[in-house]
Structure formats: structure tokens, C-alpha cells
């Protein structure tokens, strides 16, 4: 049975068993992966999995089931189990599938590359080997200390819902992670670059090698940063985490916490007027692009924050109803009958400042390249550890291995005084360089 027919059969069975509304999502996933070290293929693997997700609603109750095999024999079991959970759930007037007026799909988005999907595993290995070679050519000191991992994924997504939606699409994704180590002064240093692309042509090995070197070479002669309050410049590689935090603040599931913690409300100022945040699932070749979300809603480009003002949420149908708004097409299937919310291609819009001028204009401050600490749940404070460079009189004075940077979250977001023009949206989230006027710094000695 074809995948969409299987989803259709699951939907019919749910309705037969008494579901008022139902959805069946079937995702087939194929992956080829390789790891190369010292010009040898250390690991070469392939992986094929299938995930079936069935969500049902009745009498304002909802339940969901996930199974990683999908056959006709399995459907009856999955449906019986998920229907059996329904009486144990609470009634919630906002629970339900997307409305029939909301469902639909965008046209072709250039997110599938047949050449990438058909790439045999030996060619995946060859590309990883070639990437390693490129890095070694850039700097012989990294020889024997380079690892490249290349992962090529193909997914086919099929969705059938009781709101009348029926759709499927396929997409490809290649992720190249390159690491190179180098002995520098009294310690080792590791440079890492990640390239994510939808197409074979997007695997730019020269660019990957250059990025690894950018992370590696400047870390000679590290010193601690001075302690105290200073301006902080976030390079795009770190500023994207700030973009992710803003998107999290504006997502439906966070509303209750965000309002309780007084981080912001719709149509109020939540950050600096220099910041405009966009989520755009329709971007051609976008890493986060999709013609429809996991509820069958067609997403559009939206201004989430405009000049510092919170203008639009990221919502699925549950949170859309609870906030008396429609879904924004950001649903993602989770184990929760409400489903979750995720951004698609999200970014802070570029400003007009030249990033080199932003450094040159800085009397004293910290240029953050990368966060060392893990991302944390939303809180009233921003406290992170980071690596980067100390700036004195507009010039890089020395690299800083690790420093803690901290500020109350609202103060930090409102303290963005300049935005660079250097947005390069090469992942699902991006940001240009950002300058925050004042944060507390304490450095590792």
C-alpha cells in the first residue's frame, strides 16, 4: 500500500473507532553517514526508519501515538491503543485538529535534490575524504588531526487529516561537520565547522575548510578578559542563539511562562528597536522550509518582532485557538496531543552596520564567537559562557578562551544598539552581528 494510502487507512480506522477528528502522519527516513579520520574511512553507515504518528480527538479530549513501523497490520493496533487512551485525558476546549479553512500547501520550495538523494555511500565517503584533504591543504599543522563527518538524509513526509488535507513531500539534507585540532603554545585547540545544505552543489568544501581555519588559527596567545561591565559584540555564529531565544519567547507554548516572568506581551516592546525578527517557511532551499506543517497548515512568511515590538506568535492550531488567533503553520508532531511549535527559517533582519566598523568603533569590549554553555530554558536572566576576542581601541587585542557574560534578559535584549549587515542564513536560524551596550564579564584565568 502506498504511504499516503496507509495514512488514509489509519484516518478511516480512527473515525470508525469513534474519533471525531484524526490525523495520520507517516515519515520515511533514509540516512547515509560516514566518518573520516587521517584519510581513512573509519565509519560508513546507512539507516532506514519509518515513523507513524496518529493523533485523535473526541469530546475535546486528545491523544497521540508514535510507532516506528508502518504496515497495514500495525494500523489496527496503533489506532485501538490511541483510542483507548482518550478517556484518561482531560477535556480541553482548545484541543482539536487544524480547521479545514487553515489547511493547504505551498508550491515547490527546492528542498529536494535527486542527486543528493541518490548519492551512493562510496561517494559520500569520497566527499568526506576530499573535505579532510582540503583542510590539510590549508594548514599542514592539522595533518593527522582532522575528522570529517558527512550525513546525507532523505525524508518523505505524508499527512492525511480529517479536515480534508492530504499531502506529501520529500526533502534532502546534507550535514558536513569538520573538526581539526592543532597544538598551539601549551595546549591543543579544536576548530569545528558545520555546513548544512539541501543540495549536493551546496557542499562547498573550500568554505568548510576556511571556516575550520577561522576557528583554529586565532586562538594562539589567549588571555583572560578584564572583569566588569563592557560592551559585547555577538558574531553571527553566536548571535543566532539570541535569535533562537527571541523566537522561543514568541512561541505559543511559552506564552504562559513569558507573561508570568514578565518577559513580554503581544504588541508590546520586548527588545531593542534595532531588532526585527522574521520566520519564513517559504524560503527557497531553506533548511527549515516545508510546504505544510505537521497539521497540514500552509505556513507563510511572518514578522514576529518588528522594530522591537512583539507582532506575531509562532503557533500551531491548539495555541492558535487558545490565543484566539489562527495557526501560523508552525506545528511539529510531538508526544503531546497539543503538538509542539517550531520555527522554520528564522532570522534577525540585517541592519546597515559594517561588521568590521562595529569592531573598529568599539573602545573596549568582548567579541563573542561561540557559546560554551548549553542553551537553557527561558529565564529572567541571561548567563552564558563564551569564547571570543578582547577588543581594545577598535582592534582585536587577544583571544579569550572562556568568559562568563551575564545580564538581566530584558536589559540585554533592549541593550542591542547596532545590527550588522552580515546575515548569512546557512542554517534554519541566523543573525547578523549584534552589539549589546553593557554586560557583566568575568573571565577564566
Amino acid at each position, binding site marked *: 500500500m502506498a504511504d499516503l494510502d496507509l495514512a488514509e487507512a489509519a484516518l478511516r480506522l480512527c473515525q470508525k473507532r469513534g474519533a471525531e477528528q484524526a490525523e495520520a502522519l507517516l515519515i520515511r527516513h533514509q540516512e547515509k553517514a560516514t566518518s573520516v579520520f587521517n584519510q*581513512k574511512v*573509519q*565509519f*560508513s*553507515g*546507512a*539507516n*532506514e*526508519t519509518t515513523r507513524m504518528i496518529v493523533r485523535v480527538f473526541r469530546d475535546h479530549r486528545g*491523544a*497521540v*501515538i*508514535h*510507532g*516506528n*513501523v508502518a*504496515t497495514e*497490520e500495525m494500523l489496527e*493496533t496503533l489506532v485501538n*491503543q*490511541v483510542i483507548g*487512551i482518550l478517556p*484518561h*485525558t*482531560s477535556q480541553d476546549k482548545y484541543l482539536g485538529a487544524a480547521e479545514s479553512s487553515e489547511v493547504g500547501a505551498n508550491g515547490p520550495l527546492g528542498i529536494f535534490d535527486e542527486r543528493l538523494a541518490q548519492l551512493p555511500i562510496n561517494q559520500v565517503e569520497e566527499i568526506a575524504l576530499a573535505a579532510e584533504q582540503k583542510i590539510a591543504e590549508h594548514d599542514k599543522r592539522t595533518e593527522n*588531526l582532522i*575528522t570529517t*563527518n558527512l550525513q546525507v538524509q532523505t525524508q518523505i513526509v505524508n499527512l492525511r487529516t480529517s479536515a480534508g488535507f492530504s499531502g506529501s513531500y520529500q526533502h534532502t539534507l546534507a550535514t558536513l561537520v569538520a573538526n581539526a*585540532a592543532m597544538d598551539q603554545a601549551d*595546549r*591543543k*585547540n*579544536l576548530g569545528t565547522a558545520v555546513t548544512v545544505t539541501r543540495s549536493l552543489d551546496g557542499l562547498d568544501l573550500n568554505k568548510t575548510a576556511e571556516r575550520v581555519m577561522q576557528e583554529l588559527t586565532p586562538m594562539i596567545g589567549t588571555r583572560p578578559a578584564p572583569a566588569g561591565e563592557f560592551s559585547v559584540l555577538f558574531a553571527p555564529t553566536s548571535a543566532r542563539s539570541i535569535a533562537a531565544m527571541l523566537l522561543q519567547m514568541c512561541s505559543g507554548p511559552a506564552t*504562559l511562562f513569558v507573561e*508570568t*516572568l*514578565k518577559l513580554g506581551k503581544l504588541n508590546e516592546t520586548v527588545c531593542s528597536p534595532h531588532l526585527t525578527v522574521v520566520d519564513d517557511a517559504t524560503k527557497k532551499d531553506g533548511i527549515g522550509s516545508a510546504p505544510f506543517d505537521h497539521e497540514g497548515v500552509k505556513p507563510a512568511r511572518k514578522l514576529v518582532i518588528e522594530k522591537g515590538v512583539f507582532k506575531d506568535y509562532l503557533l500551531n492550531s491548539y495555541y492558535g485557538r487558545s490565543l484566539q488567533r489562527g495557526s501560523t503553520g508552525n506545528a511539529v508532531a510531538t*508526544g*503531546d*496531543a497539543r503538538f509542539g511549535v517550531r520555527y522554520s527559517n528564522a532570522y534577525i533582519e540585517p541592519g546597515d552596520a559594517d561588521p568590521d566598523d562595529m569592531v573598529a568603533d568599539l573602545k573596549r569590549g568582548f567579541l563573542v564567537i561561540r557559546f*560554551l*554553555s*548549553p542553551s537553557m*530554558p527561558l*529565564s*529572567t*536572566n541571561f*548567563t552564558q*559562557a563564551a569564547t571570543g576576542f578582547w577588543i581594545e581601541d577598535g582592534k582585536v587585542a587577544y583571544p579569550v*578562551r*572562556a*568568559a*562568563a*557574560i*551575564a545580564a538581566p534578559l530584558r536589559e540585554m535584549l533592549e541593550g542591542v544598539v547596532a545590527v550588522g549587515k552580515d546575515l548569512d542564513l546557512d542554517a534554519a536560524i541566523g543573525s547578523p552581528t549584534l552589539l549589546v551596550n553593557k554586560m*557583566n564579564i*568575568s*573571565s*577564566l*584565568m
Partner: protein
Amino acid sequence: MRDCKFSRRNFLQVGLAAGTGLALWELYRLGFSNQIDRNAASLQAFTGMGLDQEQLRKLLDIALEGGGEYADIFLETSLSSYLGFNGEQFQNSGLESISGAAIRVSTRDGTSFRAVTDLSWKGLTQAAREAGAAARSDVRLPPTSLKPLQTPNLYSSTSPALFEAITEKQQLLNRVVESARKAYEHASIAIANYRDTLRFLTVATSDGVFAHDTQPLLRFFITVAAVDPNTGKTGFGYFNGGGHYGLEYFQRHTPEQLGQRAAEITRSQLEGVAAPSGQLPVVLGPAYSGVLMHEAVGHGLEADVNVKGYSAYSGRIGELVASPLCTIYDDGRRENLNGSINFDDEGVPSSRTPLIERGRLTSYMHSRETAAKMNAPLTGNGRRQSFSYPPLPRMTNTYLEKGETPSEEIIRSVKYGIYARTFAGGSVDITTGDFTFIPTEAFLIEKGRITAPLNKVILLGNGPEIMNRLVMVGDDLEMSDHLWDCGKQGQMVPVTVGTPTIKIETMTVGANNG
């Protein structure tokens, strides 16, 4: 066994033969409706997922047809149930199943790997052939006959939580949420999430290991947000717990205690004062502070990064790398803990591995691959998130051995510094050894006494440097019953940490207002 309608024969008929994992759901139906004994004996029907030893050996033989020195098969099937409660509604009730197999072939140069969810004999033999074909080796070591691996069972639960009534789990979550709300008058949001899993694993290797494990897992998470209407201050806290337990976990840690801990952490965030920043003496409390050993030492001692020479600890076996007060173990053999395993995902029994003894580096943690490359003994650390991933050297339960100093004496020794008790997690750059971790509860120490709670603080250090600045070790070793998930190369595995109270001479403290 009560009216057991579930047998190996049933399994073969409805499960593997159909290639669907239906048997797992049948087991769930029977277990949930109390139609079978829930003990391990009835669950043994899942041994080998319906494949007998001869079939597994045949698959290994196929995998090694084209050459190779080693092959293994990893079979996994698991079922999870979960739910959430916000104080008014049970919001996310659901079930999740996973079934799949992975076949791996290793040669002197590398490893090839195939993972599939098609568990039909045709699907499995095709995966074995593909893994073998990709391995390409002139050397061939044929599989030996399989012998069942006997290991003591570290999971004492006799009744997996998966089979317990949903209403019982709902009552437990209700008690957790209610106690959090009662424990702190300013708590305005309290949400509890719960998940239990029953996981069946089978490993067969070409060097003769045949191992089967049934792992119960339980985890819960409570989040609390609070607002003080008088001051307008807000606070946010969370607490979690779990391990290889059934619902008896909630007898060891009552729902009331768990709710209260989440409320206490939230209170400390809301009422906390601005922390000092800079270089300060830091005392780390027992149990949860073991995250220091995990981040500052453990990751750098996983052997894969040492094979490549990436770690700050590479090539330093036998050297003094820490204060002589430090003895650190990775011990997968502690009963019921989140990181405990009867054997690892390569069929190697877990062990208590001394990593650092009196400051001297003694061992790395190994998978089969790294042990072969470094000519080192197996340590039982080859772990993977699921069948979809290849095993990597990973920690289990990592802890610092206890010392002799009473914890009160350690706190008394600090004139002005920080005491940190619970943590949200951390991270490390294994090459430089620089690490960070984030306390969820921290306090000021003034004149030898714990005083004010502190607002959000972050601690920074360099692994080898900090472990040399460890100047006092308490006599109060505790393992954390907190839930830790460790991430590496996109794979999460459950781990646990532990430590007695310890004092770091000075450490970098980051905070909002210096």
C-alpha cells in the same frame, strides 16, 4: 504465570513474522490489563525478538561473508507511555514504540553499519549483506557459536511502570504538582511531565556473546514559575528524577518531596540576591555536583577522542592530572541508577572503572573499537541512544570517591565564597578542557556559614586546572537520583553523577552584577 496468553510462539507468529512489532503492543495490552505476570520471566519471550541463536549466528555469518574481523547484531524494541499535568488538565497522554535492528562489521581499517526497521528475515539478511559488502576486507574471522551472557540484574523493579494503571500515574503527578504549589505561596505555574519505558535489547557478536536485557526506565520533570505580587520579582525552577525503576521510585522519593524541591529551587531563584562574580572559593554540595566530574573529567576520558589525540587528557595515562585527593570512577554497576546497565550495547558487561586514582590518570572509557585501537581492556562503555546509531564510548555513573572531611568543616573553611547544590547541566570543550556548568541553586558563604540564596550563576573552569585546585573532599558521597541525559554526536544516553561535598580553592564565577 497467570493465564499467560503471550508466549514465544505467539511472538513468532504475530511479531517478527509480520515484521511489525505487533507483539510488543500485544504484550502491552496483556500486561496493562493484568493478564500476564509482569516479572522478567514472562518478558523473556522477547529474547532475541523471536530470533534463535542459530538464526543470529547465520546473520553474523552473512555479514562476514565478504571478510571482516568482527560483526555484531543489536536488536531493540521498546514501548513508552507518557503524560503531563498542569494542575488542572492531563495534557499529553500518549504511547510510543520503537523496533529495529542494527548490524555492524568491523575490519582493521573501519566499521560499516546498517540499521533497519524491517525485521523480516529478508530485511535482516539484506542488511547483513549490505553491512558486509561495505566492510571490504581480505581478512575473515568467522563467527563462533553463541553463548548466553550471564550478568547480575541491576534493575530491582519487579513490575515495570509501563503496565501500571494510568490513573495511578495521574494521582502521583497530581501530588507532585499540588505539593509544589503548597510549598511556595508565590508559585503560579506548576507542570509535571512523566514518562516510563520498557526496553528490550539483544546483542549477538561474532566472538560468541549472546546477551539479552530488559530495561525499565522512569523519568519525571516538574517546572515551577513564581511571581511575588508585592515586589514583582519572578522566579523559575525545575527538578527531575528517575532511573531504572518502576513506580516504587515514588516511595524512595515521595511526590511531596519532589514537588517541594522544585518549589525550593524556584524560591531560591526568586528571592536570590545578585551573585558576586570573579575568582572565588566554591564549595559544591553532594550528589548533583558530580556534574563537575562528568564535564571536567569524564568527557575528556572517553576513548574515541583520545584515539584521535583531541582531548586535554590524551597520551597522559599514568600522569598526575588532578589533586591527590581525587579518585574518580565510572561505575555502570550501581543498582537502579539512571546510568546503570547490566551490559553495554556491544554485549560487554558494565564495570567499575577507576579513571583517576589519587590524582593519577589510570584509564579511559572504551567501546570495543577504541579498546582494540588502544590495546586496552574492555570497560563496558560502548553505548548508543537506539538501534539507529552506532555505539560510542560513553559514561555511565561517574563519581568522585569520598574523602574524610565532614561537610560542615568544608563550609566553615570558606570566609567568602559560593555554595552550589543543584545544577541544570553543563558542557565542555574536550580539547582545551574548558567547561561550564550552571547551578539552579546557589548560596553565598560568609564567614563559614551558608547565607543568602543567589540569583542565576554560572561556573567556569578548565578540567585539569580545577581538578588540581580541589583542596577538600567530604565524607558524604551521594549518587544523584536526578535525571541526567548526556548528549554526544547527536546521541542522548542516560547517565548519573555523584560526589561528596568538595571545595575548589578558586573558580570563575559569572553573574549579573559583579
